[in-house]
């Protein structure tokens, strides 16, 4: 989403304080350009997640950002379970959950009435909730905190604020960047560059790569208001409400008494005019009630597009997050999918850098995350078409679904105010081995591992960051080495989980199972018993060698 940076009324605060202020680096006065292992361009949620992931694996990483602060305004606010699990692995999931607003319930309104309410019913057996709401500036702050913590522990990670990449030169074995700073420009090199510089990606433009898709002819007013209100921690969505006739509206709670309000405005509007407080405030009063006291924290008007790059990897420059793919905001699929990009990429890059996997392994990042991006684009496009019908008949059908949903359960699954982000299953990935277990579909090769409670904690933290052989009531060696990659065994029994979640999710009717789990906690292969030869093949396949 393109967020305008005007229209703000009152603001604290966190997004005005430089978090990584400019400081001259020795690189700027070096006689020859200094070569880094990995340079990440952009210190947003995706760039920071990538940098932390690599640094935790001991890979030297430098983050360049043209700014020196966290994002302005709340922006991405809804973070899903899978990214929270990834953030756990990155060492900063829990502070986010602690700060965030937990929610499971929602209400849908049509015209003047509530048509139904829903409960996402937290899937029991998971450490994390389905979603938390958290302002993007907090999200980024927790990531920066984690960077600082890693630096204190001596991890090879650095952020340079107000370092703007002005030119890119690509070479077969490295990338050269021309970087502008308050004290002039300098040249720096990297073996690999990850471009996480957002939907308007200057990196993408400098490389002259296409970014095509569909433009939606609509404007949305997005406002963060601070109010003491009795609204519950629920997602409220209005179709065609009296206070915004013919359009839609969304109300969602964030931490610190901040509420996110989204109002659809239509296409032919004067953006500058609509953004002025004297025009925004009456709209909000009509929505919230005349008596509710509130303060505007941030206002922006956005339009959006659904589009992606043809390829995310261009030699040694790899795109992740909004720079590679952009979706409508309905469904919280932007930042959430960007974090999943880095989760997919970083272990592969680590193996390639260490010489333990061929460079072609990185092509599976393209394959798997384009699959993910297409799924997100499809879902968010469908939501957008439902929320903003583009023809007379699509509006009639949409309204029919809403009217029916008030009376009949069957119509509710058709109501689409955003299909909220769920992890992508890499069906058909070249890294998967054929499914050799008659087990549950949710843990088939390509799927991300669902969590399960174990006596002393949860399953997922035990699967973090390396290839793991998960055995459930099956014999196997404690460790196996395949071409320099060590796969350690995690031996479990259905008895370890009295709630039987482990059995339900990983065994189904099977008596035993052996899973090969990738470092990003996706299933690569599974069968009922350990068979060394097959297992070795599965590891080779999952690392791009077969």
């Amino acid at each position, binding site marked *: 989403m393109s967020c305008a940076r005007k229209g703000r009324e009152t603001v604290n605060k966190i997004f005005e304080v430089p978090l990584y202020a400019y400081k001259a680096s020795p690189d700027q006065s070096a006689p020859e350009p200094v070569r880094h292992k990995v340079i990440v361009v952009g210190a947003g949620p995706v760039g920071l997640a990538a940098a932390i992931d690599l640094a935790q694996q001991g890979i030297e990483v430098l983050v360049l950002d043209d700014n020196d602060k966290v994002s302005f305004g709340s922006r991405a606010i809804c973070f899903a379970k899978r990214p929270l699990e990834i953030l756990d692995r990155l060492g900063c999931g829990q502070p986010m959950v602690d700060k965030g607003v937990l929610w499971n319930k929602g209400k849908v309104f049509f015209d003047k009435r509530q048509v139904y309410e829903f409960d996402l019913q937290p899937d029991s057996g998971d450490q994390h909730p389905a979603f938390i709401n958290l302002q993007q500036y907090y999200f980024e702050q927790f990531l920066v905190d984690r960077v600082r913590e890693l630096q204190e522990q001596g991890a090879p990670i650095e952020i340079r604020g107000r370092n703007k990449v002005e030119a890119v030169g690509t070479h077969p074995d490295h990338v050269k960047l021309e970087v502008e700073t308050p004290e002039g420009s300098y040249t720096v090199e990297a073996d690999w560059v990850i471009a996480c510089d957002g939907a308007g990606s200057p990196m993408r433009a400098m490389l002259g790569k296409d970014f095509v898709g569909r433009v939606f002819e609509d404007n949305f007013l997005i406002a963060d208001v601070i109010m003491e209100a009795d609204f519950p921690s629920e997602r409220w969505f209005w179709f065609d409400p009296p206070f915004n006739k013919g359009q839609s509206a969304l109300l969602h709670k964030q931490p610190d008494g901040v509420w996110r309000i989204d109002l659809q405005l239509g296409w032919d509007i004067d953006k500058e005019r609509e953004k002025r407080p004297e025009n925004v405030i009456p709209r909000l009063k009509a929505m919230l009630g005349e008596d509710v006291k509130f303060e505007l924290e941030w206002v922006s008007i956005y339009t959006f597009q659904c589009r992606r790059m043809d390829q995310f990897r261009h030699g040694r420059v790899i795109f992740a997050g909004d720079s590679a793919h952009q979706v409508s905001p309905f469904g919280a699929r932007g930042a959430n999918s960007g974090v999943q990009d880095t989760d997919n990429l970083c272990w592969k890059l680590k193996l390639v850098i260490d010489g333990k996997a061929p460079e072609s392994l990185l092509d599976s990042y393209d394959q798997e995350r384009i699959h993910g991006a297409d799924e997100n684009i499809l879902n968010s496009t469908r939501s957008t078409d439902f929320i903003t019908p583009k023809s007379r008949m699509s509006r009639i059908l949409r*309204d*029919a679904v809403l*009217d029916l949903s008030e009376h009949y359960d069957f*119509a509710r699954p*058709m109501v689409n105010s955003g299909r909220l982000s769920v992890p992508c299953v890499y069906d058909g990935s070249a890294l998967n081995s054929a499914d050799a277990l008659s087990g549950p579909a949710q843990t088939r090769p390509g799927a991300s591992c669902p969590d399960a409670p174990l006596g002393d904690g949860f399953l997922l933290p035990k699967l973090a960051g390396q290839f793991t052989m998960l055995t459930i009531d099956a014999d196997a060696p404690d460790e196996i080495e395949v071409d320099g990659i060590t796969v350690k065994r995690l031996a479990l029994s259905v008895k370890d989980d009295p709630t039987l979640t482990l059995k339900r999710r990983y065994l189904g009717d099977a008596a035993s199972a052996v899973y090969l789990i990738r470092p990003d906690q996706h299933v690569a292969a599974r069968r009922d018993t350990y068979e060394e030869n097959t297992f070795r093949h599965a590891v080779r396949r999952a690392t791009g060698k077969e």
Partner: protein
Amino acid sequence: MSDLILSSNLTHADNFYANLVAAHDGLEKAESDAFNARLVLVLANHIGDSAVLKQALVAAALKQE
């Protein structure tokens, strides 16, 4: 996969037709459109089978494949 039934299948075709027309009595055009849309959705849910529904979308288009 079941096939869409395109031979006569209504037990009382005349009655159903009369009832369908009667359901629109007194409705404005917009109300009739909305009624038809709701009816299609109710029937589609009853059928459920996506293969049958796909065939129905093709059949209703009256285009020779």
